[in-house]
């Protein structure tokens, strides 16, 4: 038998270094970000409406609101679409077709986000401007681009959860005279719910963290939006826009913004992880 220890050690090293990197990043953001939040005051930092780095005002509320608008919008568009795709692939499409379409859909996740942003600028923004009015660079445009970007995540995880539902449930329901859609709505979706929730939360995390595509189509105005057609600046876009020249306290405030995002996304992922492991536990 060949000695496998070198391979094991290499893999261990890789695992160790990625974990270490994650911890280091977390520590770095905390150390750099916490002092500003402490100085400004957490409430003032999160809820302050004035972001004027030159004047030393660091309130991220407008951008926080922007992130919430854009993310909620993306979920409103992306979740129904993603569920519909998954239900179609799992329950309606012939198996060979599903086996072809699913990898194609997952490939969408591999397209660089700048390409999505580009498509948004070229197609979506003019479309919003001409059909709905406003500048076109807007919450709506950003949400729509994000919806397409989170579609693979939601579809793929929902599909897997639906496939994991035993056929005996489908048969049991049909044998009682239920129709196909009743079976889907009343048995399969509830059975797959933990997995579906995990998919939605992972999609949310992705939407919260996405930067480039949003930055390109959102307009980036420093105001809290009042309508889906208003331009908007998200937390991530703000960091990307200002990090290049920020110095001193401004720079720290941007890192503190990153800290807020980091905490929110970590929380979302932990919930998703808990949900999906609960599902695995139930499957036994």
């Amino acid at each position, binding site marked *: 038998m060949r000695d496998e220890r070198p391979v094991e050690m290499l893999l261990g090293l890789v695992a160790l270094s990625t974990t270490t990197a994650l911890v280091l990043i977390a520590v770095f953001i905390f150390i750099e970000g916490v002092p500003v939040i402490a100085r400004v005051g957490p409430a003032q930092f999160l809820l302050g409406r004035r972001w004027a780095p030159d004047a030393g005002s660091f309130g991220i509320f407008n951008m926080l609101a922007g992130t919430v608008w854009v993310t909620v919008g993306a979920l409103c568009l992306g979740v129904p679409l993603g569920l519909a795709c998954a239900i179609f692939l799992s329950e309606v499409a012939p198996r060979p077709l599903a086996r072809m379409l699913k990898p194609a859909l997952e490939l969408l996740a591999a397209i660089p986000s700048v390409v999505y942003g580009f498509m948004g600028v070229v197609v979506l923004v003019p479309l919003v401007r001409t059909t709905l009015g406003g500048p076109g660079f807007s919450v709506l445009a950003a949400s729509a681009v994000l919806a397409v970007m989170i579609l693979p995540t939601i579809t793929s995880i929902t599909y897997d959860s639906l496939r994991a539902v*035993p056929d005996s449930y489908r048969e049991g*329901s*049909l044998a*009682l005279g*239920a129709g196909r859609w009743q079976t889907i709505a*009343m048995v399969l979706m509830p059975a797959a719910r933990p997995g579906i929730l995990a998919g939605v939360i992972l999609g949310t995390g992705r939407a919260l963290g996405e930067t480039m595509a949003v930055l390109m189509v959102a307009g980036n105005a420093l105001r809290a939006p009042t309508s889906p057609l208003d331009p908007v600046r998200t937390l991530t876009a703000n960091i990307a826009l200002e990090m290049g020249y920020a110095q001193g306290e401004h720079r720290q405030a941007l890192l503190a913004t990153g800290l807020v995002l980091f905490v929110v996304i970590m929380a979302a992922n932990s919930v998703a992880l808990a949900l999906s492991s609960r599902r695995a536990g139930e499957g036994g």
Partner: protein
Amino acid sequence: MTAGAGGHKLRTVNLSVFYHRTQALHGISAAFGERLITAIIGPSGCGKTTLLRCLNRMNDHLPGFRLTGEVLLDGQSIYRPGTDLRRLRTVVGMVFQRPNPFPLSVFANVAYGPRVHGVSDRMELWATVERALREVGLWEEMRRRLDRPAPDLPLGQQQLVCLARLLAVRPEVILLDEPCSALDPLATLRIEDLMRRLKCRYTVIIVTHSMRQAARVSDRTIFMLDGRLIEEGPTAAIFTSPRDRRTEDYITGKLG
């Protein structure tokens, strides 16, 4: 030939079934008497499940499934074009080999059928759930635990919940595919008891690999081998004086 109280509820006429190229049933003509328990016995792979599932068209969606011949329910072909599958399956209901309660509460499981067929009134659903659970003898045990997830129950109770779930839609024919093969002896006895009580109101057809079970509960027995009906008759006659050599071999354990 002794038919049931009301003659034959279900009949197959020269029924042949194919999965792709392979033939699973060869020209089966069998009759199932009303308010009787008919047992289908035979070695594993002889086509018992296939025959049973033809009776409520649960085979329709299987890949490569094809059927010739007829299945008559109250004299009407269930395979004629335009048959309402949903209605057919409320008349001819089925309990599966492995208990398959939905991952919902006991109440939601039993109320599922009526809900699917448009009942939404709470009081009516409660009444139906109580009636169905009483019918399978689970009401006293379950009345305080109706909100428990059904899959958390012991297997025997799961199977009874599945039976109650079926009775809630008021079927006329009950198909049972080895309903006890996953259960312990006590739960098995309980189901067999129940079957004897159910036969006053329902036409019961049970597939079983246990000849003793067939002998204990059934009025008539059908013996199958390699997709063919070998012998059919009153259970006592089949077990004491089989006419066919192969039936005798199977019953005495020389076969399968």
